[in-house]
């Protein structure tokens, strides 16, 4: 089974809810009772169309205010794939929610209103998807029905967007332009005769053909140990298994590995998934590994292949997305959770703020507000084993936890 997680981004009124509703409707994913509820509520509100946002805005406060406050997860499937859409709000605390939704996604849809073209918000959406190194980005140029399905307008918007692409950091990102009308259902799930000049795929067809091997960024295998399994039963008396998820690459029986931080070497003896033994643990599988030698490994330690060492250091510089209403200050102390490992960290230096609309940087700042993005150096109380985010999407990222409130207050991408 394939699962593809997609983050959607759009400004208010770009038709994001309509697009999601259209996808659900045309893939027959809306059940009769849900559709009836939407019809009923749309009618009560006096709309002469179906307000699909009612299917996604789950909280009372959202329905009252007619806005999306929080990331919602929407599910649909085709015979080929299961899809999860992380629908992120377009305005309030936009950056925080967008970064959150994008962090677990393998593809993103950026919506542009064909009447308005590329606007400042579009820059931000693109910046964040690029910062998060989302491999596949679809630029859906929506409301084509309102511009007479004009090829010229589509091409002009495409050209505008392409001028942004030179500024991006992650150049290998795949970007696909698709003209659609979510309201009329053109080119979303079904092909249309209104766009004879467009030779590409529909939005859904494009998502369907994204190869599962290609949606994750490659890297080197990293195995952070979550839990040590010691059954102490007669049958498994001496069993010591290291439970964890494999990131970035694959690990096989016989591979020579190094345990970090002890730097002790051993070989992989067995790979278990439940009660079956495997030759190879693939990327993103939750397995249990045993080693040839009895070495000291505990939660937060990491197994890596010999010759494939990450950096081991007590300091690093990262790009931070700040998510808390309480400011981050230079000198502040936080807990850094890097995978399953936790360390104490001090903000050593806030180098500069990065404007997410590609308008440059602000120097001389000593604190960060909610939704700010900045380059920050940290000092840690003990070393962690990391890669640069550009080389390893998992082992190069972390979250910041407030030591008093215990809240997750920021996300970081190691430079």
């Amino acid at each position, binding site marked *: 089974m394939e699962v593809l997680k997609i983050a959607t981004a759009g400004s208010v009124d770009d038709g994001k809810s309509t697009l999601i509703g259209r996808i659900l409707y045309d893939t027959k994913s809306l059940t009769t009772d849900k559709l009836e509820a939407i019809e009923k509520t749309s009618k009560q509100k006096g709309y002469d169309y179906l307000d699909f946002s009612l299917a996604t805005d789950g909280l009372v406060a959202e329905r009252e205010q007619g806005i999306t406050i929080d990331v919602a997860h929407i599910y649909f499937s085709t015979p080929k794939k299961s899809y999860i859409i992380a629908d992120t709000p377009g305005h309030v605390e936009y950056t925080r929610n967008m970064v959150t939704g994008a962090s677990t996604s393998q593809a993103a849809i950026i919506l542009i209103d064909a009447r308005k073209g590329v606007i400042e918000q579009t820059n931000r959406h693109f910046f964040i998807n690029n910062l998060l190194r989302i491999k596949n980005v679809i630029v859906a140029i929506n409301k084509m029905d309102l511009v007479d399905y004009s090829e010229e307008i589509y091409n002009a918007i495409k050209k505008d967007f392409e001028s942004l692409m030179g500024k991006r950091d992650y150049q290998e990102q795949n970007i696909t332009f698709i003209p659609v009308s979510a309201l009329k259902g053109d080119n979303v799930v079904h092909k249309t005769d209104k766009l004879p000049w467009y030779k590409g795929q529909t939005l859904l067809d494009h998502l369907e053909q994204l190869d599962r091997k290609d949606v994750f960024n490659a890297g080197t295998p990293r195995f952070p140990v979550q839990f040590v399994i010691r059954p102490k039963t007669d049958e498994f008396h001496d069993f010591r298994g290291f439970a*964890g998820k494999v990131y970035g690459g694959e690990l096989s029986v016989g591979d020579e590995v190094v345990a970090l931080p002890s730097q002790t070497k051993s070989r992989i003896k067995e790979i278990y998934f439940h009660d079956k033994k495997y030759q190879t643990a693939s990327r993103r599988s939750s397995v249990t590994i045993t080693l040839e030698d009895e070495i000291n490994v505990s939660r937060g330690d990491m197994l890596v292949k010999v010759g494939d060492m990450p950096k081991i250091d007590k300091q690093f510089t990262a790009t931070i997305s700040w998510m808390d209403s309480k400011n981050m200050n230079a000198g502040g102390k936080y807990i850094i959770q890097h995978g399953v490992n936790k360390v104490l960290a001090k903000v050593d230096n806030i180098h500069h703020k990065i404007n997410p609309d590609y308008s440059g940087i602000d120097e001389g700042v000593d604190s960060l507000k909610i939704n700010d993005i900045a380059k920050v150096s940290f000092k840690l109380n003990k070393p962690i084993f990391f890669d640069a985010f550009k080389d390893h999407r998992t082992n190069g990222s972390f979250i910041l936890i407030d030591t008093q409130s215990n809240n997750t207050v920021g996300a970081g991408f190691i430079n």
Partner: protein
Amino acid sequence: MALIKDTSHINPLENEAIYIIREVAAQFEKPVLLFSGGKDSITLVRLAQKAFYPAKIPFPLMHIDTGHNFPETIEFRDRLVKELGLELIVRNVQDSIDQGKVKEETGRYSSRNALQTTTLLDAIEEFKFDACIGGARRDEEKARAKERIFSVRDDFGQWDEKNQRPELFDMLNGQIDLGQNVRVFPISNWTELDVWSYIEKENIEIPSIYFAHKRKVFLRDGMIWSHSDYVYQEEDEEVLEELVRFRTVGDMSCTAAVFSEASDIASVVREIRESTISERGARIDDKRSEAAMEKRKQQGYF
């Protein structure tokens, strides 16, 4: 023995759920798995077995028993626990009623479903549980679509839906203050069909009420209600014997049946695939209002 080649065919949702369950065991001191005897919590038990093999599941199961369960569910629960050698804690809503902490509802739509919350919160306090693993899924209901995988509850067990921690990448922040607890939802990203397909593939045993059987029922508001001592029934509501099954299993007073001839798992999967009604369309407790689930969750409902 020849090794199986690679793990790439393994369901990504299964890998995710196992990762989450292991994080619970590692980050918390006293976790518990909330077990209702329904298909979602049965699936959780299988996932927990897989997460810790060859060791046993390192936490107990807990059932908040309304006393109005289907007898088939309770029988199944006891057998499963015995076969797997698991520890089961049962706390009864009846005790909360007897202690005067909650009041039994009366009348046409009376149910003990909402009363469970008090019993659950008391049990969490009694055992000092800091993490409760549950089988809720985001596709079930629109308030649940906003739920986190690690969802923090305050001293009163309440859900602050507007002030939730962001969850990034795979990283689960389980840091809490004393008195707080976390509700954990490992199958958040599964759909109803995913659960059924998994039960089919893994050959997991489930209670017989999920399959078509003859049952005494009555019809009200377009839904099929069980005829039982626990369910309020008007005199003019005629008892019928019909071939039905249940898509979701809760309290008898809040779970409606569907007409079905699906007598084995393959035909159930086929039926779900073709169904045009959502799973919770048969949950009477959700029909109370547009925000029924959100309100119950704020109060500490699972």
